[in-house]
């Protein structure tokens, strides 16, 4: 981030996504969903959303539900 770039002109979500670009797609997607949800939902609801997404994702990758 350059000194004159400021912090508000840039899209905050883009800046944050840039920081987690090294993570796999599913990690990035769920993280982004969580940040968007956190703008309108409380922590507990966001945690439940993350859990639902994780369960969905592991089912899709072929795991059996325990």
């Amino acid at each position, binding site marked *: *981030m*350059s*000194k*004159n*770039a*400021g*912090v*508000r*002109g840039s899209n*905050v979500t883009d*800046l*944050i996504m840039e*920081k*987690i670009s090294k*993570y*796999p797609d*599913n*990690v*990035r997607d*769920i*993280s982004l969903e*969580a*940040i*968007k*949800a*956190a*703008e309108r*939902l*409380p*922590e*507990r609801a*966001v*945690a*439940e*959303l*993350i*859990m639902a997404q*994780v*369960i969905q*994702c*592991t*089912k899709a*990758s072929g*795991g*059996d*539900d*325990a």
Partner: protein
Amino acid sequence: MIIHKMTLNNFRQFRGKHEIEFVSLDDPTKNTAVVYGENGRGKTGLFRAMMFALYGERRLSQDANVPDNEIQLVNTSALQESEGKPVRTSVEVTFSHKGKVYNLYRAIEGMRHGDEVIEEIADVRLNITHVDGNTEIIDRRSIDSKIADVLDPRVKEYFLFDGEKIEQLTRAGKEQRRAISEGMRNLLRVDALDVAVKASERAAKSFLDDLTQETGTAGVELARLIKSLGDNEAESNRIRTRLEELADERDRAYRELEDIDKRLMEFKEIEHLLSERRQAESDVRRLEHDADQVMNQMQTYVCKAAALMVRDTVEEVFASLDEQKEKGEIPSEIRRDLIERIISEHKCICGNEVCEGTSEYESICRWLEKTSDAAREDVALDLWRFLAETRSHFEDDADIIKQRIIEHSNIIHRIDRLRDKVLSISKQIGESEREDSWKLEKIRKKHLEAITSIKAEIQNLESQAKELDSIHSRLTQQLDEEKRRKNRNSVLEERSLLAREIQEALAEAYNTYTSEVRDVIGKSATDVFGRLLDEEGKATLKTIVVKENYSLEVLDQYGQPFLANVSAGQRQIMSISFITALAMAACDGGRIEMPLFMDSPFGRLSGQHRKNIIREIPLLTSQWIILATDTEFRRDEAQALRMTGHWGKFFMLCASGDGNTTIKEYSVDDAYSILPREEEQV
């Protein structure tokens, strides 16, 4: 954004209708206005009126401890005379932004109800005149979002510098960190990210609990690793929090020391001893820093020093490896795996059969005994290269290490001598005939002992934190290996791992993002700091750093912390620089395209600092509105402001005799003549 005109009607102390034109439309380059008046006349009320017009807000951040029913916007005299009827209070602001002219009107009605005054929003209107000259009447429901597009309500407070905010930032400690952290969080909009981080921790913990309950599977190791990492992070956080508390305690003790030293200086008979002690203590601090640096340099030589200690063995091993290399044993001419293949397949590379019991077979077997495996050869070669490099620097390394050890011991010796000197001076001060001075000296000694013990605890905790960091790296590595394991036995393992990765990703995003912004704001604050400091300050104070715990630190030319020695005026400049940097960041890093209100900014500042602020701020912002008292804005300041060519307006807030305030406008020239000279009061 530039505020052109504000019209108040029955607002706070301003009874009836009052108009202030901050910038003349004929000359917009004169972007600085001075509102001048004694405390309590309503200077901050003008900023409050602005915030009320823009956002309908009745409170400012400085009202945090004031109950709601004590904040009244409707003029009290007007209420008294209304005989129980509602009184309308309004603020109308005309401002321009990006070529458009906004006319905003907001009114409340207030009525006395018993002892209380009830105030309710009565009206809000916004018209925007576009560049093409057409005027748009904004629907009432869209007004807030139109205003938020001009100035986001979350950063609005950065454009008011009041004495309290400046003072809050000058005091190192929890209060300062809270103010900075709050400012940065608003600026960064990291609240959502923060909630997401905490939610991911909660989700990861829930999956880990599920996994831990599933016993007797391969998931046990994974669960153990994730749990250990969580415990490690919790312990690191606990240590970090304790370190912050200790830093606060240490800073408080240093402030107490400063205070005692100031009081001791009042005793003229020991003044020379105090100066001598202050110098010696400052030398000790500088030398301690030098000793740390030498120690850090020595740490880079630890590996080489270890090799030097076993120099004979190194030479012996090198000679042996070198000999084997000369003989062609490492690397062997034919690799062991090739010979093994010939023996097992009974076939030579030329295609001939090699049968057991033949002389060829026996020769090849003897050859096998001479060769070593490839991995061993690689290790031996690596070791040969390392030793060849190391032994070539033996003499130089020995010299450097010797020099560093001598240097370190000399510094320690000088520190010891200075400490003895400090002790001896302190003893003399303690033996002073003045009872009050030796009592103070006794308290000072206690603070010094407390500082020593705090420093020891900090050192101990820092080393524990380092150890935890290294355990964390090891555990992360083990977890990575565990992740790479194929054929996971249970879906619970998959979930736990994915949740852990999401937690890591969000935490990393938060940490990297906030650290980059801290850096940007620190650099920007440093730029402003350099422009505002006087020559003496510029010579010693170089950099403002926003630390990880959101405290501010000033570094000297050697990059070392300087805060303990920063004067009250310099601290005030540091605070102003930091708030200006926040305001600049809120405007995307460049010039502040918002009006900057500064309420009593010159309090403790020296003449040169005042002049620097007056010279620089009009260049950094699109509009500057100075709210000043008669004690801080005199002819000197007025003359400096006139020299900038940016001063266009001067208003005086005067008491009207019935507890209300009237606003009188003077030309800049007239203002100069009515302002007091130095040491004069109005």
